[in-house]
C-alpha cells in the first residue's frame, strides 16, 4: 500500500545540495512542489528533454514558446562554463532556471537588488541573443518580433520587419546617441541592454510568486 514512512519526500540523490544554489528565496515546500512538477514533466525520469515541454497545453498558446523552452537548456543560464545547448537537464538545473523568476524579498539591500536585476536582465538578454555572441543584432531582433507575431496570418513579414527595424533604431539612439548616416550599429551589448531598462522595475514584473501552502486546521 505504498510507502509506510511519513517523512518528507526527498529530493533525488545525485543532485548537489540545492539550497546552496538558491540561497534563501525558495522554501523547502516550494522545492517539493517544483520537484513534483518536474516529475510530472519528466514522466518520472531523472532528466527532462525539450520534448517533455510539449505536454503543457497552456504553453502552446505562447508565441515565444520556443525561446522559453530553449532558455531552459541554454548553458549560459545554467551557469555552466561551456557554451551552447544542453541535451537534457536534471532537477538541479530546473531549479537554477526557475530561480531567475524568484520574487524580490523585503530584506534585500541595494547591492543585492542590483545583482538580482542584472541576473534577470541577463536571462532576457540570452533569450534574444540566440547565437551566443554577446550582442543582439538586427537579425536576431527581427527573429524575436517575427515569433511574437507569428500567430497572425494576416500580418506580413514586411510589417514585422519594419516594427523590428523601428525598434532597433530607437535602441541605437538610446545607447549610442546620434549616429551618422554611414555608421553601422553592430548590435546591442549587454551594457546597452541594461541602459534601456533603466527606469522600469522589472524585479516586480518578472517573477512567479508561490501561494502560501502551509497546512491549516480544517475542522468541520
Amino acid at each position, binding site marked *: 500500500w505504498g510507502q509506510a514512512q511519513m517523512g518528507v519526500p526527498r529530493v533525488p540523490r545525485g543532485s548537489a545540495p540545492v539550497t546552496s544554489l538558491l540561497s534563501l528565496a525558495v522554501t523547502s515546500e516550494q522545492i517539493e512542489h517544483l520537484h513534483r*512538477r518536474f516529475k510530472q514533466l519528466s514522466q518520472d525520469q531523472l532528466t527532462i528533454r525539450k520534448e517533455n515541454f510539449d505536454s503543457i*497545453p497552456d504553453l502552446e498558446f505562447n508565441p515565444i514558446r520556443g525561446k522559453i523552452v530553449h532558455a531552459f537548456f541554454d548553458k549560459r543560464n545554467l551557469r555552466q562554463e561551456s557554451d551552447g545547448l544542453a541535451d537534457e537537464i536534471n532537477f538541479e538545473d530546473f531549479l537554477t532556471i526557475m530561480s531567475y523568476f524568484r520574487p524580490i524579498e523585503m530584506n534585500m539591500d541595494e547591492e543585492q537588488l542590483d545583482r538580482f536585476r542584472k541576473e534577470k536582465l541577463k536571462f532576457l538578454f540570452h533569450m534574444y541573443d540566440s547565437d551566443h555572441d554577446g550582442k543582439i543584432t538586427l537579425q536576431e531582433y527581427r527573429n524575436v518580433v517575427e515569433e511574437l507575431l507569428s500567430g497572425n496570418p494576416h500580418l506580413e513579414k514586411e*510589417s514585422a520587419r519594419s516594427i523590428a527595424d523601428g525598434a532597433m533604431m530607437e535602441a541605437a539612439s538610446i545607447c549610442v546617441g546620434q549616429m551618422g548616416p554611414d555608421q553601422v550599429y553592430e548590435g546591442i551589448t549587454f551594457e546597452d541592454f541594461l541602459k534601456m531598462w533603466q527606469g522600469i522595475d522589472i524585479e516586480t514584473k518578472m517573477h512567479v510568486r508561490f501561494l502560501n501552502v502551509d497546512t*491549516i*486546521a480544517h475542522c468541520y
Partner: protein
Amino acid sequence: MEVVWAVGQLGAVWLAVLLGLVMLPSALGVSLGISEAYMWVLVKTLEWATIRLQTGAKKPQLQMPRTPTANGIIERDETPMEKEIALLHRADFEFSHIFYFCRKGFEAIVEDEVTQRFSSEELLSWNLLTRTNVNFHYISLRLTVVWVIGVIVRYCFLLPLRFSLAAIGITSMIVGTTVVGQLPNGSVKNYLSEVVHLTCSRILVRALSGTIHYHNKENRPQKGGICVANHTSPIDAIILTNDGCYAMVGQVHGGLMGVIQRATVKACPHVWFERSEIKDRHLVTKRLREHVADKSKLPILIFPEGTCINNTSVMMFKKGSFEIGGTIYPVAIKYDPQFGDAFWNSSKYNIVSYLLRIMTSWAIVCNVWYLPPMVRKEDEDAVQFANRVRSAIARQGGLTELPWDGGLKRAKVKDTFKEEQQKNYSKMLVRNGSVG
C-alpha cells in the same frame, strides 16, 4: 468436518447480519443510522488528527483560509494582456512585451491549469490515509498509532465487508432484473424494475460507505428528459440512481459489465450501443431522440464531459447531448475529498485498483444538487446551450469552468485554439499604430 461446519455457520451468521442490517433497509428505503454513527466517529478522529498536526508543526501558521477549490500553487496575475503591455509601454515596446509572454510561459511551466485537473485534488489536512501523505511530516507517536489502527480497520474489517456487499449488490441486480425481465410489459413490470434498481443501488452505495446529500429534490429529472452531470468517476451513476431511476446510455462492454448490461436492459429500457454504432453520431442522436420523445420512458443519464475530471472544475461539454432536444435537467455532483478520493485517474490506475482504493478509503461523501430544468432557446446553438448548462453546474457545485476539452488528457491542444491567442496579440500591436 467440524471446521467446515463452523465456517458454514459463520458464513450464515454473516449473511444474516448483512440481510438484516443492509439489504432489508435498502429494499424499504430506510436508514438504520449505522452510516451516520460511523461518519460521526470518523469526523471526530480526523478533527483530532488535524489539531495534532497543527500543534506539531513548528512554524507559526498564517490563518489564511485557503478555500478547498482554490487552484494552484502560484499566484497568477490576472491583468489582461492589453493592460499589462500598456503599463510597460515605452518606445521600444517589443522588449517589454516579451516580459508578459515570458512570465506567462514560466507560470505555465510551473503549473498549468489543465494537467492539474487530471490528477487528484490536494488535501489541506491529512486524512490518515497513506496515499494522501505527501505534504505532511511525522508528528507524534499517538498520531502514528491512530494511523495504524486506521489501516487495520480499513483493510481487515471494512474491505471484506464492502466487498461482500458489493458482490451481493451486483448479484441481486443481475438476478432481480432477469426475473423482472420475464414479465410482460406493463405498469407492474415498471414498478418492480424500479424497486430492483433502487434496492441494488442502495446496497452498492452502502458498499462504498457512501453518504450522499441530495439538494433541491423538487427539481429531480422527470420522464422524457435528459439528465446531465459532471463526471468524476464511474461511481457517479450509482450515486444518482440511488435517488431515482434513469435510463443509462453507454457502450456495450464484455465481461461482468456486459452481463449486467444485458440483464438490466430486459427490465428497463436502457440504451446500450454497440461499438460500431457509437462512431455514427447521427444514429446515436436518432436513437436518443426516439427515447426522449416517448414520455413514458425514464430520463436518460449522460455525462457530457466525456472523461473523468478531478472534481475541481468542469471541462467542455460535448455538444452532441444538447442536440437531441427535450428538457435538460442539470445535476452537480461534488465529492468531499477529505474522506476518500473518488476521482478515477485512468492513466494511473486500472478499474480494479481504482475500486480497491475506493473500498479502502474512509467513505465517499458527496453533495448532489438538482438544478432547475433548462431548455434550448430559439437563438442559441448547441454549443452555447452546452456552455450555459455547464456554467449553471459549475456555479452550483463551486467548481471552476475551464474552456478546455477533456480530450486533452490524451491529446494536444487544437491548432485553432492556439491561433486565436496569437491573433489577439498581433491585432493589438497593429492597432497601436506601430506598423508602417
